[in-house]
């Protein structure tokens, strides 16, 4: 018996969110690093 493979197309978000979300997440990651730097500067007496 021949069974045809069921090919599932990949799930995707709407195009706008596909483009925007990774950019925002990268910026959030950078912002966290900046905040860590500022906090360290405060604790170490720089600010």
């Amino acid at each position: 018996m021949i069974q045809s493979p069921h090919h599932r197309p990949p799930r995707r978000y709407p195009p706008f969110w596909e483009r925007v979300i990774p950019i925002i997440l990268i910026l959030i990651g950078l912002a966290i690093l900046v905040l860590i730097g500022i906090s360290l500067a405060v604790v170490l007496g720089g600010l």
Partner: protein
Amino acid sequence: MNFFTTVLPFLSSGVSLIFAGAVLRRFIRKRGAHHLLWGIGMLFYAIGGFCEGYYGAFGWNPLIFRLWYLFGAMLVAAWLGQGTAYLLIRKRGVAHALMVILALGSLYGAWRVFGAELNPALMASGSASASELSGRAIVTPGVRTLTPFFNLYGTVLLVGGAAYSAWLFWRKRVLLHRTIGNVLIALGALSPAFGGAFSRMGIPGALYISEFIGAVLLFAGFLRATTPLPQPVEALRASQTATS
């Protein structure tokens, strides 16, 4: 009555209070330590905003200042972050241990803040005016040094946790409403974190505006994350024809 120093912080407080009510109602219905801690954190947020508005409307009051510094400046980020810790940390024992440390640290912070010597004249120094509450009024050394530890802990957990959750959903391309909601929560938590940092550097106006934006984004993120989008918007399938 100045809008930025009186009305805006009262608005922040109001938004935070409504948000706290929504989260605590969810805790009553669905339980979850994260809901309880987020609700408590947003109550702290509301207390901080109220104290800021009170200062803008009625002037200096040492009790109001201490309440503002303890709840608004020192503890709010840490308690919100602890809620995220309960949500994301799988090992319950680790989350409980962190909670014990936070509770003890909060008690210590309260003891230091309520025992600190204050000088409101110091709030107007450098480029900063005395129109906003500022931790510079605390004279006793070592009190303000505690705050960055609480804030860093809370901000990394809350912002990092929300960004991590958003990334997980995005990677699997599922539950778009939760991806968007977590992005909004991360941005909302970043706003007052940067506002507090800028305020500490003496940049006027940053704190209250950032707190209002933060409260709105946090609430919007929570509502978005808990409200599914219409089904066709959640995920689109690439238009491919299955071969047979």
